[in-house]
């Protein structure tokens, strides 16, 4: 041990093993069991960084997650920003530097794994301090399924930072024994280094486990570094402890100023003296054990400054015996120092007035302004809080049905009380779920003065801030939120500006918005606001607690959902073929669809022109398997479809196919597709790829909530079928070759009919439908056979130059024929009539979804936007989709009247030029007119045309 501030006989670090680490470029040593903060303090390093706004030197205020100051950037083994030095476990080779506010994310991908695990239990206990251990032990011995999570590597919580005895032995021995017993229970899981950071509805608690962080470069690559636990608990006990809060006084932010309980923790958990000469400033009894234990360990306590006039006799005596100067009725008004604190200014304080000041030299100033129960999780779970005037803190008002607090989290501050409260909370929790908690004999505590905290002694004095002795300066040197560099004067400026809510003050001042969530500043702010406004802090309350309680890395939240697992990639049965043949893919929802198949050296434009030409002049095929398919069966199937489609479906004959449009109740197009009548009581409809799930849900909603009497069942069969459109003038020849038993003649197998046939040896359903205007067949086979049939079609079509095509060519072909794509040419404000499809809206049916809206005046306006074609005057210009359309060749002063926008735009092989579809106000009336599309600072003249630009007579569909 060569750390100058390490003391023998204290702490739980392993003194026989030395770890070397680097901080701000200098090398130091520490031991396993240290945090970065304790190791720095052991080396006498207090200054961690300068503050973000005022550049003031800052040190270590606390010993845990409540630390507002000591933010560090880890540089090695892997860069990670904004960690608190008080929660970073020391490891060999750690390289860190102090941070002034923000840090730096790595520019390399994080090589570590992160994962998630779901877990379930009867009782979740958060915190392995005395209350949490007593609760867990009680539940475990009662046979319940229990999970105990604790943020520290060792059990004991606050016991680690004290010299308490249980059954005559160090309390941490008892904690170790409990953990050992829990380890023998099959239904008990103890998670160390695990922080519950969010408590959500229905007993869902999220916790972050740091699994290999403490191993540094030695962390095994195959084990996740951090794990998010998603714990579903029937009952939860929050034994989350309490956080000490400081008092605001002038220059209360220097390195060497530390919370009294934290200093006690550095001594007892880490064997570290945070200074040589200390002054203790307190408003309550809890700082006395810190003062006495530190004095015992070798710190010269120059003075204990107690804001209270009345100090319990046993503390007076204990101070006297050790020669400690006790100044009751005094406060610390300010500090001096260059960098670290070198002097505390002490003055008498009575009736709100300060007496004369005297300086006391010190290199350590310990502060205790009382304790705030750690109620963040309880509050997240919607537990109500009430203000406890004696403790000067917000405590749980009453337990919830499934959530209760235990120990100091609930405002119980004695060790014996915490143990009993924990056991009691577990029994109540088990009773609430119909179980019985066995009585557990709890260890005996020792009621010695030196071990009596808070409630057994004299009442605390609630003191938020000490008046500033500086003339005319109101809190301009009194820090509230050290991380945000926010001052008492900032709070007063907020109330002076008229803000009365602590929520508003929080946003105005940024207090409580940093990584520490205002653990040391939040309640203090409420207190200062209450004083400034002259209102009761009990009425004012605190700001709302929100998850996460501690900072959680996005990498941990993402877990394994990254790279190829980021979002499910859905593929069709034909996908391996597409990959093997060089397709480029387009994402359509979660689907990967072949976009086009470039030949060697071919551009996308060249490939699409080639694919389109094949479909118009020869034969081509594509993978249409992603189309949604819904089987509709039952005696009332026709009735349901008549009510949901705008046109009549019930009259469709078995063996025939009809195109249909579905509208919302507003009369706007929701989806379109084809409907085939499979049998008298069975239809099969198709949806657009992206709407498959939505349409099924839409249909189920109407069926289940509006027309439950209809005898119809809906079943998704999307993925049962591989669907292959075979397109082009030679498609009939190809089909004839692979389906020798099928009469493919136009009369025997007319447009908009289907046949069951054997295709390439497989039982298939072949539909004569066309999304291109060409003679076309759609071949459906069970997906297992998809590749085999696809390859058979390719082989049979080889002589005809059969060409696979992708979604881009599909779009060109359908746009040339003005077949709209729902969601591209429509946007939820487009009616079938706007698309020029009045023919698909039945005038005869008594009712269907959307019908009523077609009679609205708005839906009947002549100047609605309608789908039209656009031909740019320069036939090489490809209009961008989404481009606006205006009436004049010059762009007028804003606001520019917009007539509509381009919805689809392509280069056409068949037309030998570019073209577009657009929604244009009064578009039908404008056919033949010239309009303009602003593009790159000029306007492009375009001619408005009928939307169908190719084969207007429809002569090609029969081959």
């Amino acid at each position, binding site marked *: 041990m060569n750390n100058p501030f390490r003391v023998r006989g204290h702490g739980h670090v392993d003194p026989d093993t030395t770890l070397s680490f680097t901080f701000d470029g200098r090398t130091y040593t520490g031991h396993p069991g240290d945090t970065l903060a304790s190791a720095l303090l052991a080396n006498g390093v207090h200054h961690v960084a300068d503050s973000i706004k005022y550049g003031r030197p800052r040190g270590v205020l606390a010993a845990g997650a409540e630390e507002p100051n000591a933010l560090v950037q880890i540089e090695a083994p892997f860069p990670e920003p904004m960690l608190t030095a008080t929660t970073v476990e020391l490891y060999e080779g750690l390289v860190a530097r102090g941070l002034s506010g923000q840090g730096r994310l790595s520019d390399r991908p994080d090589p570590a*794994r992160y*994962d*998630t695990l779901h*877990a379930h239990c009867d009782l979740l206990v958060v915190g392995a301090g005395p209350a949490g251990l007593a609760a867990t032990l009680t539940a475990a011995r009662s046979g319940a399924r229990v999970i105990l999570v604790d943020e520290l590597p060792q059990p004991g919580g606050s016991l680690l930072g004290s010299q308490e005895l249980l059954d005559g032995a160090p309390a941490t021995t008892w904690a170790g024994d409990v953990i050992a017993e829990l380890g023998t229970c099959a239904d008990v899981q103890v998670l160390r280094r695990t922080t519950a950071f969010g408590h959500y509805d229905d007993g869902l608690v999220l916790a972050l486990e740091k699994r290999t962080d403490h191993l540094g470069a030695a962390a095994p690559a195959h084990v996740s570094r951090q794990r998010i636990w998603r714990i579903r608990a029937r009952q939860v006990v929050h034994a989350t402890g309490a956080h000490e809060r400081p008092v605001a006084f002038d220059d209360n932010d220097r390195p060497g100023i530390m919370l009294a309980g934290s200093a006690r923790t550095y001594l007892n958990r880490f064997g570290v003296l945070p200074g040589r000469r200390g002054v203790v400033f307190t408003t309550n009894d809890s700082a006395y054990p810190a003062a006495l234990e530190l004095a015992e360990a070798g710190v010269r306590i120059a003075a204990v400054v107690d804001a209270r006039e009345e100090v319990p006799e046993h503390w007076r005596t204990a101070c006297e015996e050790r020669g400690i100067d006790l100044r009751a009725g005094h406060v610390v008004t300010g500090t001096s120092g260059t960098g670290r604190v070198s002097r505390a200014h002490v003055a008498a304080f009575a009736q709100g007035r300060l007496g004369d000041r005297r300086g006391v030299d010190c290199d350590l100033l310990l502060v205790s302004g009382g304790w705030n129960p750690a109620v963040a999780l309880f509050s997240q779970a919607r537990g109500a809080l009430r203000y406890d005037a004696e403790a000067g803190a917000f405590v749980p008002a009453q337990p919830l049905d499934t959530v209760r607090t235990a120990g100091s989290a609930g405002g119980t501050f004695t060790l014996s009380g915490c143990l009993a409260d924990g056991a009691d909370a577990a029994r109540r929790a088990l009773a609430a779920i119909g179980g019985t908690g066995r009585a557990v004999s709890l260890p005996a505590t020792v009621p010695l003065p030196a071990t009596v905290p808070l409630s057994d002694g004299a009442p605390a004095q609630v003191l938020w801030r000490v008046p500033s002795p500086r003339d005319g300066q109101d809190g301009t040197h009194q820090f509230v939120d050290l991380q945000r560099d926010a001052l008492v004067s900032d709070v007063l400026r907020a109330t002076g500006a008229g803000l009365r809510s602590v929520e508003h003050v929080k946003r105005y001042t940024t207090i409580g918005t940093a990584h520490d969530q205002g653990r040391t500043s939040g309640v203090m702010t409420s207190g200062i606001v209450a004083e400034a406004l002259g209102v009761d802090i009990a009425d004012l309350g605190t700001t709302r607690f929100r998850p996460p309680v501690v900072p959680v890395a996005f990498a941990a939240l993402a877990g394994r959902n990254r790279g190829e697992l980021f979002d499910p990639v859905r593929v069709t049965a034909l996908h391996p073929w597409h990959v093997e043949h060089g397709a480029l893919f387009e994402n359509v929802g979660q689907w990967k669809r072949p976009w086009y198949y470039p030949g060697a050296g071919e551009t996308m434009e060249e490939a699409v022109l080639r694919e389109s030409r094949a479909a118009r002049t020869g034969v081509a095929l594509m993978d249409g398997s992603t189309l949604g398919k819904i089987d509709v069966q*039952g005696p009332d199937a026709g009735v349901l479809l008549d009510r949901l489609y705008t046109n009549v479906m019930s009259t469709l004959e078995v063996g025939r196919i009809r195109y249909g449009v579905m509208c919302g109740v507003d009369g706007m197009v929701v989806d379109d597709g084809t409907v085939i009548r499979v049998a008298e009581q069975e239809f099969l409809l198709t949806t657009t790829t992206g709407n498959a799930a939505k349409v099924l849900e839409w249909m189920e909603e109407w069926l289940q909530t509006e027309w439950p009497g209809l005898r119809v069942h809906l079943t998704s069969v999307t993925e049962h*079928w591989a669907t292959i459109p075979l397109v082009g003038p030679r498609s009939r020849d190809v089909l004839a070759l692979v389906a020798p038993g099928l009469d493919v003649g136009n009369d025997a197998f007319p447009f908009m009919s289907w046949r069951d046939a054997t295709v390439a040896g497989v039982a298939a359903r072949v539909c004569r439908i066309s999304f291109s205007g060409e003679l076309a067949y759609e071949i459906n086979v069970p997906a297992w056979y998809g*590749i085999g049939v696809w390859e058979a079609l390719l082989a049979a079509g080889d002589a005809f130059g059969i060409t696979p095509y992708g979604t881009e060519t599909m779009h060109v072909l359908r746009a040339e024929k003005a077949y709209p794509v729902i969601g591209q040419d429509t946007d939820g404000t487009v009616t079938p009539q706007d698309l020029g499809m009045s023919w698909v809206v039945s005038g005869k049916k008594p009712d269907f979804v959307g019908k009523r809206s077609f009679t609205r005046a708005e839906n009947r306006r002549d100047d609605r936007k309608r789908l039209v074609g656009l031909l740019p005057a320069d036939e090489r210009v490809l209009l961008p989709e989404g481009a606006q359309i205006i009436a004049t060749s010059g762009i007028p002063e804003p606001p520019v009247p917009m007539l509509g926008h381009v919805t689809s735009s392509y280069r056409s092989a068949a037309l030998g030029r570019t073209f577009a579809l657009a929604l244009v106000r009064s578009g039908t009336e404008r056919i033949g007119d010239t309009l303009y599309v602003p593009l790159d600072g000029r306007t492009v003249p375009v001619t408005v045309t009928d939307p169908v630009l190719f084969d207007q007579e429809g002569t090609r569909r029969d081959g």
Partner: protein
Amino acid sequence: MTVETPARFSPLSAWQDRLARLPAGVRVRELPFLSQLTLRAEPGGAAAKAVEGCLDVTLPGPSRAEMSGDVKVLWTGPDEWLLVAPDGRREELVPRLRAAVGDGFATVTDVSAQRTTLALSGPLVRAVLAQGCAIDLDRRVTPVGSCLTTLLAQAPITLVVRGEAASSVWLLVRSSFASYVAAWLLDACTEYRGG
């Protein structure tokens, strides 16, 4: 031109080698080409009884599967079951069941290629699934025969508990999600591969 019946490919046919190399403690096998039919019927109604008679099974209640027979029956909704039978039975079962229902109201739909079935077994299965499945697989909560439609990571699945404490399960996954699930399972096993 002569036409031969082409080969079939199951959704995970390309994954067999990788799935065979999982660590000890978890075994994953695809059961390809099972016949699968969706049955929709009013529970306890005449049509449901006709189906039960035809198959000689009792349609299981909520969140349960009847796995003892040749045709296994998985509850998938309040009036919905998935019938799972060996390869090659779909052509025969659909007309037989429809005939049994007769004029009653129940529907049978062939969805055989809609999903593929994964059989997982081994002591690590529960831990692997817990990485992405929110269901409590404790034997007291989900005993053998439990059948739950839920999510595994981001993929919809139907999970059937076949062995105590999920030492053996079936996962039925939609064909388009099968490769995602396979990739997810392989990755989930990383932790158990050792250093």
